[in-house]
């Protein structure tokens, strides 16, 4: 019979079953290749975001003019990161973002950390998820499929990447570590206002995370412990500032705060 022959002879490579498996092969390989490209992009984003954060820590040097330079440089760096995210967005065009989410989530979280750190330094507020997403809307030349959403007259097309709320949360949780570092550095640099500001800000974030509690995903709860430790360090720093401030004779307070370097009259020093 036909069937018996089949079994012993070579499997007919033109059989419909084999043909469909060839298509599965193609589908799976394309998928895995895309995943791999996204992983690589994510690694690039992570590294560049981390470097931006290091760069931003240099703002807290005593001089103000260099701060602007540094911020400008961080803008350039973050623009580079955005270009990488644009590449992710291109890869995801027409795809389900969540299908490849695991591939790029570490990079995106690190980007959120960097961008929110820069934002805090500039504005002393927490950047919102919406603001971050607004910065991830790209224009690209409308290719053959120019009929995409909101294609503009010049044949340019909008391409948007959406950070998920969870990635945003995880990035902000990591941000608190950087803020803690910034706080300790500020104290070391004789900057008294920043620590109090930071402790206030960190407490707000801490209370926000407490409010969310275990409603969020497990990864968020896991970071809560570190967040609490960072808050503790910042609160301790403020406490130290306050306690030592208590020793200045009241009438000297103004002087000391005005110019820490001016030596105080030795007679009055030992209160």
């Amino acid at each position, binding site marked *: *019979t036909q*069937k*018996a022959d*089949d*079994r012993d002879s070579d*499997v007919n490579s033109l*059989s419909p*079953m*084999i043909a*469909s*498996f*060839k298509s*599965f*092969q193609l*589908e*799976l*390989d394309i998928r*895995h290749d895309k995943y791999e490209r996204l992983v690589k992009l994510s690694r690039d984003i992570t590294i560049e975001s981390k470097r931006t954060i290091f760069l931003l820590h240099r703002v807290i040097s005593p001089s103000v003019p260099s701060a602007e330079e540094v911020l400008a440089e961080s803008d350039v760096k973050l623009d580079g990161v955005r270009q990488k995210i644009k590449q992710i967005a291109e890869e995801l065009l*027409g795809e*389900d*973002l*969540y*299908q490849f*989410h695991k591939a790029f989530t570490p990079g995106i979280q690190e980007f959120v950390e960097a961008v929110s750190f820069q934002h805090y330094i500039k504005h002393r*507020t*927490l950047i*919102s*998820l919406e603001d971050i997403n607004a910065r991830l809307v790209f224009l690209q030349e409308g290719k053959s499929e120019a009929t995409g959403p909101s294609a503009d007259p010049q044949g340019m097309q909008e391409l948007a990447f959406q950070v998920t*709320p969870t990635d*945003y*949360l995880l990035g902000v949780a990591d941000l608190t570590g950087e803020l803690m570092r910034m706080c300790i550095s500020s104290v070391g640099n004789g900057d008294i206002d920043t620590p109090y500001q930071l402790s206030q*800000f960190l407490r*707000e*974030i801490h*209370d*926000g*995370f407490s*409010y*969310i509690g275990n*409603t*969020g995903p497990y990864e968020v709860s896991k970071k809560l412990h570190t967040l609490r430790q960072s808050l503790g360090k910042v609160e301790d720093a403020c406490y130290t500032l306050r306690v030592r401030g208590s020793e200045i004779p009241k009438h000297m307070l103004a002087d000391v705060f005005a110019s820490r370097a001016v030596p105080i009259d030795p007679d009055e020093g030992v209160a």
Partner: protein
Amino acid sequence: MSVTEMFSNIQVFLCADQDVREDIRKVVQTLEQTAREILTVLQSVHQPTGFKEIPNKCFRARELFCTVRSQIGDLKTKFPMDQYYRFHEHWRFVLQRVTFLAAFVVYLESETLVTREEVAEILGIEVEREKGFHLDVEDYLAGVLIMASELSRLAVNSVTAGDYSWPLRISTFINELDSGFRLLNLKNDPLRKRYDGLKYDVKKIEEVVYDLSIRGLTKEPEAERDK
């Protein structure tokens, strides 16, 4: 927007997300229940007397697939369609089970490998992601592999039931399937592990065919069947 407001917004999002998941979980549970029922119907083919009732059983299973379709229809309404992979883990397991059941029914009916298109039709879903709630290719393949293992059991039990033709036909079928799977480059994931199991199914069926052939039992049933 204050920090508190921001976190409130996120909390709202997270709660909504949990609600969606809760809804999905519930529908999936009913789906699992139906899947177990279909399985019970089809299990009887392994019984000595079950081989004659295959058409009946398939018919009954087909009826139950109506329920599956309506339950999946319900599932589709529980989340935005373009976030399929966000919640994929919730239904992945059961979707593989019902794919297996569909593939098993089709095999019992026509001794052919159900296509992804056919499974999609039986389950009332799509093949292409763009078109709606669809059957992921890996889930389809997983379902097919579960069936392969069921077929190796069937080969054994058909012999017990005195029907010697099944093992040979299953053997041909499963060998082709094996050739198909060999074309794939799998990652080190559950699918790969399942595919490793296919080798044992092929081996088991080969052993049954061997047992039959050394006893000269490979011809008869073929003839019997032609009648």
